[in-house]
């Protein structure tokens, strides 16, 4: 049972059940609920991208919010200009991939908090471009009336339709991330995070994998932005300020960096939990901040890490009880033999 809980089959089952649950869910939700769950999925996609860069490859980035912004602006501007959504969606990902690749170069020279400051500066730069370059971004007025796509005759204009579209795209992007992390690339990313010098000595081209980790994580951030734009249909530069990057970082850390489901759980704590904790009114942030502090103190591997620790503890307990039972059985057997020999 314990082995099943950590197996790939279990993770696959959870993913399929999650998707089925999300297919059924809209029939029980009002439009606001649909918007909220779709928002959760978009944030989860952005956090999945950051998790690839930070959680798996160990390269800290405080610019994921900026990539969501670049993706959103790219899709928003292109669809407002009449470009079909699929092309705009792909362009958002490709553009962020290219910019992420370039941003990866500093990571070849600096690490840890120095890298955090490089990406933080990039995030601020993107925000200033969004706010000040009115000819391109419409400045502080942002972009409005972004159309929702019509795909092969399917109009996603209504809340429920767009919800299903978001679910479909989230599933595809999550599958892509799962494919990457379970491939030899995923193993190389983990090696890069844990011991780049040793990885290099084993033939892992750490330079290329570092750039790839940045580019792919950023690209997924861009795809999240491409989903965000038609979801909210209006945004302005503040939507993608440093706060969003910090929130995404928190989602990855709280959920469990370097785990597939961590970003989904982290995004739920950031997007869905505030709604459930409305009852706590202004105390919500205080409660949340305290929970994060306690979690980081006692389980820095996040909520998924906490679950894994519980499973490991239960497994150890089971092994210990099996061993003591075996020892008792052997003891009884030896006593019987001695008794037999005495007679």
């Amino acid at each position, binding site marked *: 049972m314990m082995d099943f809980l950590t197996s790939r089959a279990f993770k696959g089952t959870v993913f399929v059940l999650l998707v089925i649950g999300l297919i059924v869910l809209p029939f029980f939700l009002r439009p606001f609920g649909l918007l909220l769950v779709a928002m959760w999925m978009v944030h989860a996609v952005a956090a999945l991208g950051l998790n690839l860069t930070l959680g798996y490859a160990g390269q800290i980035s405080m610019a994921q919010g900026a990539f969501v912004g670049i993706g959103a602006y790219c899709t928003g501007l292109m669809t407002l200009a009449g470009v079909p959504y699929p092309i705009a969606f792909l362009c958002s990902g490709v553009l962020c991939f290219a910019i992420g690749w370039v941003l990866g170069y500093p990571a070849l020279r600096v690490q840890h908090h120095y890298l955090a400051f490089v990406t933080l500066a990039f995030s601020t730069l993107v925000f200033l471009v969004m706010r000040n370059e009115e000819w391109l971004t419409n400045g502080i007025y942002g972009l409005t009336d972004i159309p929702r796509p019509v795909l092969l005759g399917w109009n996603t204009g209504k809340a429920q339709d767009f919800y299903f579209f978001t679910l479909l795209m989230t599933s595809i992007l999550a599958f892509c991330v799962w494919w*990457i992390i*379970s*491939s*030899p*690339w995923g*193993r*190389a990313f*983990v*090696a890069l995070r*844990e*011991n780049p*010098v*040793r*990885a*290099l*000595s*084993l*033939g*892992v*081209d*750490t330079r*290329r994998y570092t750039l*790839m980790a940045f580019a792919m994580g950023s690209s997924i951030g861009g795809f999240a932005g491409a989903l965000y734009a038609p979801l909210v249909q209006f945004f302005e530069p503040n939507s993608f300020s440093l706060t969003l990057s910090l929130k995404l970082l928190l989602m990855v850390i709280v959920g469990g960096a*370097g785990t597939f489901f961590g970003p989904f759980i982290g995004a739920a704590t950031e997007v869905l939990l505030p709604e459930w904790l409305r009852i706590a009114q202004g105390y919500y942030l205080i409660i949340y901040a305290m929970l994060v502090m306690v979690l980081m103190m006692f389980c820095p591997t996040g909520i998924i890490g906490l679950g894994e620790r519980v499973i490991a503890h239960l497994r150890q307990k089971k092994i210990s009880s099996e061993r003591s039972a075996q020892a008792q059985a052997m003891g009884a057997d030896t006593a019987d033999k001695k008794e037999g020999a005495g007679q």
Partner: protein
Amino acid sequence: MTPVLQVTNIRKQFGGLTAVDGVSFSVNEGEILGIIGPNGSGKSTLFNCVLGQYQPTEGEVRVDGQLVTGLRPCDLNRLGVSRTFQLLQVFPQLSVRDNLILAGQEHKGTMGTRLFGARDAGLTADANRMIEFFRLSHVADEKAGGLSYGQQKLLDAAMAFMAGPRLVLLDEPAGGVNLTMLGHLRERLQAINAEQNATFVVIEHNMEFVMALCDRIIVLAEGKVIAEGTPDAIRSNPEVIEAYLGH
């Protein structure tokens, strides 16, 4: 016959300090060469120059006759040169099997085939063989970080052999290993040497281990080679005794 490794007049300076000063040696196929010397004699710096971790100030390194001076460690590894480090270097969050698959995967295919091809890069059988060879079967699915020090040391060595290298440089493989595990490690290295005609260069402080394992030994002191010969010749060399014990 071209030596597997030929090091010619390697010099490495750090500012005013000359850590390695004109060292030359060669290693033939199937040979086990030991490099010994007191602390600070330049052994690890020499290794790092040979393996591309440091760019030597002077001199050249050839593998199978091919000039490899200054190549990046990953490129050198793909040419068939592998190594272990002085301090234990496994990937603690990966399982024993995944550590081994990782050690071989970059030798298979391209970046593209590694992304879209088999999840294990077709290396599970090879990894299992290596696991069995180093007697790690009972911990094959455990995370490497959870193994004992000796088991991690065995895994570390196994990773160096995973891709079937031409040449393996082992930096203090016996460091911190208990006597039982030490005998086991030496026996495994000798077995690989005999079965695969593998070529090793070993840096070691444990004299008993290095004397029993190596065919030939060179001794470094203050960055220079002060003696070279068979283990018996080295054991009785007065210069070596002086370098270790002082005047």
